[in-house]
């Protein structure tokens, strides 16, 4: 359970001291800062110095509003605050905090403007500032888009510095000394004689004075934490099986729920017969919900068994029933030629005689985090509490208020640790369905757990996508590249249909990481086409870049091969971004590119810039008699500043494994309106035995700081595709590759 929430109910009294501050400092010139949400619950003697630092007699709690689904952001956020606050990571607790506008995500604006991330011109940044104001208005407390570190890199350190200087001012007031005589270390203000005043003892005084907002951030040469290996704050619990997740929620009087929803996602229930289920042991209630039927029981397994025993006649799918129709819709969209956006048009593509053509496909993919979807909801007297792991607490709060009529301020969303997400928990249907169940049982906490099969069947997948490319080469160089991609709109489905937002204009995810690659190809055009609504789709780790990285780089590799050039050398020649060029040089050096390979070994290279982070990868395989074997991957990534090198390496390796597992093995296909895949035996990603050695290097060749959760994903599939082409002479044109090639 969120600690701030617990504290609020248990120990906070009304009549608190209000201190404004925090997130606003140095950020908004045009509006008042958002209200500090911790102030509502403060008691005498407690100080919430900024929305990110809460100090009371029990200790120091750092509020880490970006949700942790495994990427270690509780730790990273805590480290950024602690760097300036002068506390050790084992001296603090972390808490995701309540949903609040104060925690809006600034960095999301970076990918929502029509400038490539490498463009840091005044015009581009002015546009980002405008979009930022919109984001603030909408209160997008959203975890996604690899934005946690770029969003928090400055403001969390400012929060720590404000808190530190205010505590020093409080110590000065208590002791009669001047601030300049005081230092801070290890969670205490240190007096000239070495006496230590713990922050906890200064909280009451700090609450009485104006926060010190005139702070200067420390230079990197003075950092104790940032850039050095850290132990993540969740690592002891996760190494001993003691970490609690949403699915482990347990409350007095809680009942267990299971659900069956129309596997033709979004379809209706025509009729159901629950007679058998009702008579099963432990079953307390059968409750119809939107698009399905729920079961309340005294044990999760009994609820699962009873749910399976309900006979349900499902209505038709609100989208084409068969997979072939979905592909046909993309092909038709490209044939019709009505563009959604053409964000790049360099040179004069139409003047070039094209000599290379290709059509590539990327399948639907489920997110399938290992912890199935779950939520616990308690409906009280004009109050609702929700405990769940998700990435969109503010939207969930609004959704629950909207569907129940309970005022939004009386809907309390407590964010719990997530057993993976990969974008799955950017959706909150599980909370809505659990709320429907809990509304039928006021006063009783209801925990809804999806069966794995239900989680797979109800997954709002990555979109399918189809690319048609044309290109030309001359004099051993790439001369022209014209890419057209068709894809259903994620924004229409995710933010439009399910969150009720109206988002006019093109869907930037359709051409994401296609149009803004830092290559100076003389004739270079990218056009996106919005396919009609098909299966419901959502954001999947690296979003549009997950398929577009494959499309762009596989086709570029095809053109480079046609030109007879070396794929590293030709990219270096075309590359316009200096830090990106260094990445290619790095992976070439790391892999000894051009060196002698073993018998039947082959290599491929690819590069992709997504979420502001460029990544280059080289993959080596061996074409054995039994099939293709993955041997080794070299990765270089540029994030400006590697905050924690251990977690960085883990996330990069995980991103590569994620990408390869799905590129090789996984797809969701529809038949009779239902996903044909059910569980991990037919949708498994990568397993240990297929995993190559992965060597990672983080470069720091620019000031701007960007994220690493998603950017390692896009280059992996095209690098592998090139290696397969080098090994077999046949270039993969569609994922998953296992449909066309044998792997060991």
């Amino acid at each position, binding site marked *: 359970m969120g600690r701030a929430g617990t504290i609020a109910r248990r120990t906070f009294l009304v009549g608190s001291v209000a201190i404004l501050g925090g997130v606003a400092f140095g950020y908004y010139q045009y509006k008042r800062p958002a209200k500090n949400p911790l102030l509502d619950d403060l008691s005498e003697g407690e100080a919430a110095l900024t929305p990110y630092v809460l100090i009371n007699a029990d200790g120091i709690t750092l509020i880490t509003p970006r949700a942790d689904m495994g990427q270690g952001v509780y730790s990273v956020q805590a480290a950024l605050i602690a760097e300036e606050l002068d506390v050790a990571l084992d001296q603090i607790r972390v808490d995701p905090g309540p949903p609040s506008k104060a925690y809006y995500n600034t960095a999301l604006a970076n990918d929502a403007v029509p400038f490539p991330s490498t463009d840091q011109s005044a015009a581009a940044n002015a546009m980002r500032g405008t979009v930022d104001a919109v984001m603030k208005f909408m209160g997008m407390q959203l975890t996604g888009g690899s934005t946690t570190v770029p969003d928090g890199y400055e403001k969390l350190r400012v929060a720590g510095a404000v808190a530190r200087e205010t505590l020093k001012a409080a110590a000065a007031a208590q002791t009669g000394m001047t601030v300049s005589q005081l230092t801070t270390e290890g969670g205490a203000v240190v007096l000239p004689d070495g006496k230590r005043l713990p922050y906890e003892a200064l909280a009451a005084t700090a609450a009485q004075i104006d926060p010190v907002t005139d702070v200067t951030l420390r230079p990197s040469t003075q950092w104790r934490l940032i850039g050095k290996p850290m132990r993540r704050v969740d690592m002891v619990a996760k*190494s001993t099986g003691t970490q609690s997740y949403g699915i*482990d929620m347990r409350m007095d009087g809680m009942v267990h729920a299971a659900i069956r929803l129309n596997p033709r996602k979004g379809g209706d229930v025509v009729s159901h017969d629950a007679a058998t289920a009702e008579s099963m042991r432990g079953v307390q209630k059968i409750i119809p919900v939107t698009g399905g039927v729920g079961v309340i029981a005294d044990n999760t397994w009994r609820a699962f068994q009873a749910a399976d025993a309900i006979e349900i006649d499902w209505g038709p799918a609100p989208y084409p029933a068969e997979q072939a129709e979905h592909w046909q819709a993309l092909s038709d969209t490209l044939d019709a030629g009505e563009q959604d956006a053409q964000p790049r048009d360099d040179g004069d593509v139409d003047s070039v005689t094209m000599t290379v053509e290709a059509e590539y496909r990327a399948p639907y993919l489920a997110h399938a*985090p*290992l912890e199935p979807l779950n939520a616990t909801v308690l409906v009280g007297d004009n109050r609702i509490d929700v405990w769940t792991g998700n990435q969109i607490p503010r939207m969930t709060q609004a959704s629950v208020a909207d569907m129940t009529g309970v005022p939004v301020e009386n809907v309390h969303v407590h964010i719990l640790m997530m*057993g*993976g997400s990969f974008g799955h928990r950017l959706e909150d249907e599980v909370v809505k369905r659990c709320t429907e169940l809990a509304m039928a049982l006021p006063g009783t906490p209801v925990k809804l757990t999806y069966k794995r099969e239900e989680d797979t069947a109800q997954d709002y997948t990555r979109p399918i996508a189809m690319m048609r490319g044309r290109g030309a080469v001359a004099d051993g160089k790439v001369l022209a590249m014209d890419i057209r991609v068709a894809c259903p709109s994620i924004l229409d489905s995710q933010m439009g249909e399910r969150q009720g937002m109206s988002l006019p204009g093109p869907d930037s995810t359709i051409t994401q990481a296609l149009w803004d690659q830092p290559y100076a190809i003389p004739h270079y055009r990218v056009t996106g086409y919005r396919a009609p609504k098909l299966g419901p789709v959502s954001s999947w780790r690296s979003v549009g870049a997950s398929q577009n990285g494959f499309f762009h780089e596989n086709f570029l590799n095809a053109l480079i091969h046609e030109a007879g050039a070396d794929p590293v050398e030709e990219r270096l020649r075309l590359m316009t971004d200096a830090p990106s060029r260094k990445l290619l040089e790095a992976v070439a050096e790391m892999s000894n590119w051009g060196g002698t390979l073993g018998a039947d070994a082959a290599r491929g290279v690819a590069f992709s810039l997504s979420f502001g982070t460029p990544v280059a990868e080289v993959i080596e395989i061996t074409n054995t008699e039994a099939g293709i074997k993955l041997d080794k991957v070299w990765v270089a990534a540029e994030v400006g500043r590697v905050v924690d090198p251990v977690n960085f390496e883990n996330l990069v390796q995980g991103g590569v494994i994620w990408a390869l597992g799905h590129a090789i093995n996984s797809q969701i296909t529809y038949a009779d309106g239902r996903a044909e895949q059910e569980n991990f035996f037919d949708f498994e*990603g990568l397993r240990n035995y297929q995993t190559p050695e992965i060597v990672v290097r983080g470069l720091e060749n620019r000031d701007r700081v960007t994220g690493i959760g998603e950017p390692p994903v896009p280059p992996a599939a095209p690098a592998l595709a090139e290696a397969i082409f080098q090994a077999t002479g046949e270039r993969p044109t569609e994922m998953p590759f296992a449909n066309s090639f044998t792997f060991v």
Partner: protein
Amino acid sequence: MQITVNGAAHDVDVEEDMPLLWVLRDEIGLDGPKYGCGVAACGACTVHINGVAVRSCQTPVSDVDGPVTTIEGLGNPDQMHAVQAAWLEHQVAQCGYCQGGQMMQAAELLSHTPDPSDTDIDEAMSGNLCRCGTYPRIRAAVKTAAKTLQGS
């Protein structure tokens, strides 16, 4: 019926075919074993029965014929098993949801194969799915734990 878990006897009044996983989680209150797939395809629910790693989601409680050990019984934050200490040293986890099962599988491997080769590790650990992709660290941690156990 009665089962012994982490050294403690528990009387449980459940159907014979209830999987051990749900007896552990919902009846006894041990959350270390995780539900991931329900069909023995992911390994998140792995526990030991008589020291042998089994998938508790596919083990009817009536088939439990010896003492059960869960990740909570392998060791704890104050007294870690060598495998847990290795997992911490290598900072294996990302989301961590599969890691209890991974560690139970690794502990069983090392109990009968004290110096596992890469092939031994691949064969023993490939039934345990990690969607975050921590396999490189799992391999390294298994080797570290093996060294610790051999030295002790």
